[in-house]
């Protein structure tokens, strides 16, 4: 059940339109994944929404692969009401690199991108008000990164607020 290269007319049209921005297209457990280049994510998404009728942004999240040189995968899951299909756009992103925000394409992306920034520290360029959504403003560190050590954060907080050494 390893991922199998995918080649259907949708991928063909994408390749024709965007050339090498479309890195590879695979099928994992019968679900289409298209790997795209980070900088052109917004155009590709706009194209998918307008021409390909993927009119709903289901989800936008990220996965952290610390031992890769481009450590973050930004995952964009789209759904088309007409074709009743889902597609997953994936981009590789280095730490500190910018990725164009999808707020103009789907307003739904607003809070999702804020949560990605909050949890991974990925900066979405062009986002109306990119600030933490779940954690308090003055929280340092991004919890969902693999190298984020919860114990260090906890002991620091306990020492600072309660003035005692946390026993963990």
């Amino acid at each position, binding site marked *: 059940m390893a991922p199998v290269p995918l080649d259907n007319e949708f991928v063909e049209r994408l390749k024709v339109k965007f050339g090498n921005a479309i890195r590879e297209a695979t099928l994992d457990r019968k679900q289409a994944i298209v790997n795209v280049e980070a900088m052109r994510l917004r155009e590709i998404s706009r194209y998918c929404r307008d021409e390909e009728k993927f009119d709903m942004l289901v989800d936008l999240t990220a996965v952290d692969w610390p031992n890769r040189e481009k450590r973050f995968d930004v995952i964009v899951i789209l759904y088309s009401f007409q074709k009743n299909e889902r597609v997953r756009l994936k981009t590789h992103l280095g730490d500190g690199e910018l990725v164009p925000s999808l707020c103009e394409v789907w307003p739904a992306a607003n809070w999702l991108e804020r949560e990605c920034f909050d949890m991974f520290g990925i900066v979405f360029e062009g986002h109306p008000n990119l600030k933490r959504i*779940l*954690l308090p403003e003055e929280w340092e560190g991004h919890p969902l990164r693999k190298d984020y050590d919860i114990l260090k954060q906890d002991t620091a907080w306990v020492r600072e607020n309660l003035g005692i050494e946390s026993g963990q």
Partner: protein
Amino acid sequence: MTDTRTSGLSNVETTVLGADEIILNMGPQHPSTHGVLRVKLKLDGERVVDSECIIGYLHRGVEKIAEHRSYQQFAPYVDRMDYVAAVSNGLGYCEAVEKLLGAEAPPRARVVRTILTELQRIASHLLWLGTHALDIGALTPVFYCFREREEILKIFEKYCGARLTTHAFRIGGLQYETYDGFESDVKRFCEDFTHRIDEYETLLTENRIWVGRTKGVGILSAADAIALGVTGPVLRASGVKWDLRKAMPYAAYADYQFDIPTRPTGDTYDRYIVRMEEMRQSQRICLQAIENIPAGAIMAKVGKVLKPPPGEVYHSIEAPKGELGYYIVSDGTTQAYRVRVRPPSFINLQAFDRMARGSLVADVVAIIGTIDIVLGEVDR
């Protein structure tokens, strides 16, 4: 109070009272914010000019915990997210991991899962109806709704020992065989439920004050709903006929007849009608499913230690609040590399500002109720 209008100021901020707006802070402790949600409202007199939701008070870092637990160990955490509809959370997670494994639950397990999930949907909608009516001032429906919900929770307790956070399902099927008398309990509840729901309808649907307080309040158009990624009853009330149980059938939904209620205008009254109709449809599914629960095994052969081959999967189900999705990445070990939950309440709450703008303060209470959010799921 100088009247800014006559002083020729052309700024957009000309307000009725001429005074600057008041910032009203609602929450996090507030009788009608359904948990720890804080809403900062910018008011001009009674009208809401702008609103901002501040969330995160109930953030427990469920997705971080998932990376340090095995697949089976993480299943109980899933119930704690949308604690009002724990059974459907469990179904979503178990089916996602089964898809990751490439396994398939046996037919009997799928039918029992469908029945329990539909009962949970009725229970979740009952809790929504009770609290929503209470916020708008109708004191009586909440007690009727909780009386029915109690029946459902009794069935859950008899089946898996817990009422609220049930952890009723296992990856690959079911842990427990259905107790004898399960079919008769569910059948009795469904038959009794038909005239109960008519009782609520007579109390509220044609009630002039209820209609006055909900019609035309918090309108969300179909285009806005799709653009904001809103799903579930809120989307269907805006006129979009889309339900995951029909679009991408999972568990045993493919072989039952039920229809998807939709309403044209997408205001609070339409969402109320859609949810009431959905309860009737769920009851219809339960009756059809209870007729013939196939015999046979209740657990697929997935073995004690689960080591799904590396790769990723996204699987979503129609939870009472909307599309509840799980994006799981596996690196071949017994623990998931990344579990991302697509929370319907979190994304639906984003539409609050669009609905609340221009409405009155008293409507804000009704709008929060109509989106039907559970803060455990919003904050994860």
